């Protein structure tokens, strides 16, 4: 599938990356090359092959992951906010949304 410069710009937008002109150009060319490489998978016959679900082992899939429905401790507001770049009045403050 050919990839155009506007495809690259759209992907950057979807990924929330404000790429500069130079970056768009470099990444564009590199992604075209990498996608050409990964398209070698088209030569593999995968009819009736189930997609792998994440390298999980049979034992992993059998493991019971539920736990008793009991409240456990959490970080708490103060700790959770301690690393925030702009906390305010017990909340995460962000620039205006609209």
């Amino acid at each position: 599938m050919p990839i155009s410069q506007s495809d690259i710009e759209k992907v950057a937008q979807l990924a929330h990356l404000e790429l500069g002109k130079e970056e768009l150009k470099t990444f564009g060319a590199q992604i075209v090359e990498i996608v050409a490489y990964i398209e070698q998978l088209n030569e593999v016959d995968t009819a009736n092959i189930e997609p792998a679900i994440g390298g999980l082992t049979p034992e992993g899939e059998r493991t019971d992951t539920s736990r008793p429905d009991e409240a456990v401790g959490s970080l708490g507001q103060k700790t959770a906010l301690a690393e925030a770049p702009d906390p305010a009045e017990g909340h995460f403050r962000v620039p205006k949304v609209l």
Partner: protein
Amino acid sequence: MSRQTVQFSITAAERLNETLNAFLQIDREGALRRAEEIEKSGNAGPLAGIPIAIKDNICVKGMQASCGSKILGDYHPPYNATVIERLTKAGAVVIGKTNCDEFAMGSSNENSAFGPVRNPWDTTRVSGGSSGGSATAVAAGIVPIALGSDTGGSVRQPASLCGVVGLKPTYGRNSRYGLVAFASSLDQVGVFAREVEDVARVLGVIAGRDPQDATTADVPVPDYTASLTGDMRGARIGFPRALFGKGLDDEVKRSVESVVDVYRDLGAEIVDVELPNAGYAIAVYYIIATAEASSNLARFDGVRYGFRAEDAPELRQMYRKTREEGFGPEVKRRIMLGTYVLSAGYYDAYYRKAQQVRTLIKNDFLKAFERCDAIITPTSPTPAFAIGEKTDDPLAMYLNDIYTVTANLAGVPGISVPCGLSSERLPIGFQLLGPYWSEDQLLKFAHAYEQKQPFTERPPISAS
């Protein structure tokens, strides 16, 4: 005693860091305090007083976790990863956080926002990656043990390039709780040490089910050190001849083939095996790993932790500027690629297709392991390459992982063991891959080789 050992490690780390750049943080005061506490408490855990270095994408309470990225800069996680809880309980003393490729994305450590790690065997060469700082810290004798993470070879490949032992366990053997996620279906915490026995000891401490990580499996953890008997009789080592061809350095090829001879001499049976879809592994990997990364790294948005760009008065603009300024080129490239392969209209052609070929790769292993107990390959196609040599060609860089990514895709364990030096005095490593949960057997085979052919060479840049 433990205070002296820890003191030695910290001093060596500080002294050699200007040359090697292996550490992003060295916690002199904290580590000495903990060493003293362990001495006083009489902690008789299996790792009591042992200094240990931790890759900077694993959370250690009170220390930084930058993941080699500007976007997390000065982030200090408020909790310990499960593997750290277990190591600490066993008496280990974390002395510092090691340099790595940004968010563990890379095979040379050149993608760290804080500069590349230098290989102690030749400081103009890469350490390998992404856990290059941990591999280097062990190779240079700064610490006996270090932890890394392995998503496509990030423990085994730097172990090979630096001349130490590196293990990636079965997917689900170790908890990922507190490991900053890159590609969740591939990531696994791994162990570095100079000797196999130390890897066995550490794995025994950190392995096992963790309710905080739903992907850890409820499988008994054996006494790994008990399996180190040196006995190879009756063992079947699979030799995938087809993987010893194109692209493999001649010296590496000869060196790993001589390991096969050693195993034969030790009484193992060498059987031919095939992994017919292994050639597709890099393509599959760079679809699945980037797709998962694009999703996992969406959380870095300048709101809850880490860096936030200035002069962005509107929310979306703040996200975009923060991510543009906070992430380095390789991370952006992978987020872009992952977003592309997951985007509307392309999902079936790329992501679903890759997951199907992943099934075929997994089936190749299941079939091969009907005929053998472990498969031998080189760990890396070449010894350590020069810093800067491959930075302009991402695809060439990705091909370094050709022998290691299959294990992550299939979820099987793998270990890299040093097996000699090249004519330029650079370490060469071989890799053993085993069936699910066969770490005891891999360690046994690795140890048997090590007993027969001990790797006693030491790098020119060294703590002692």
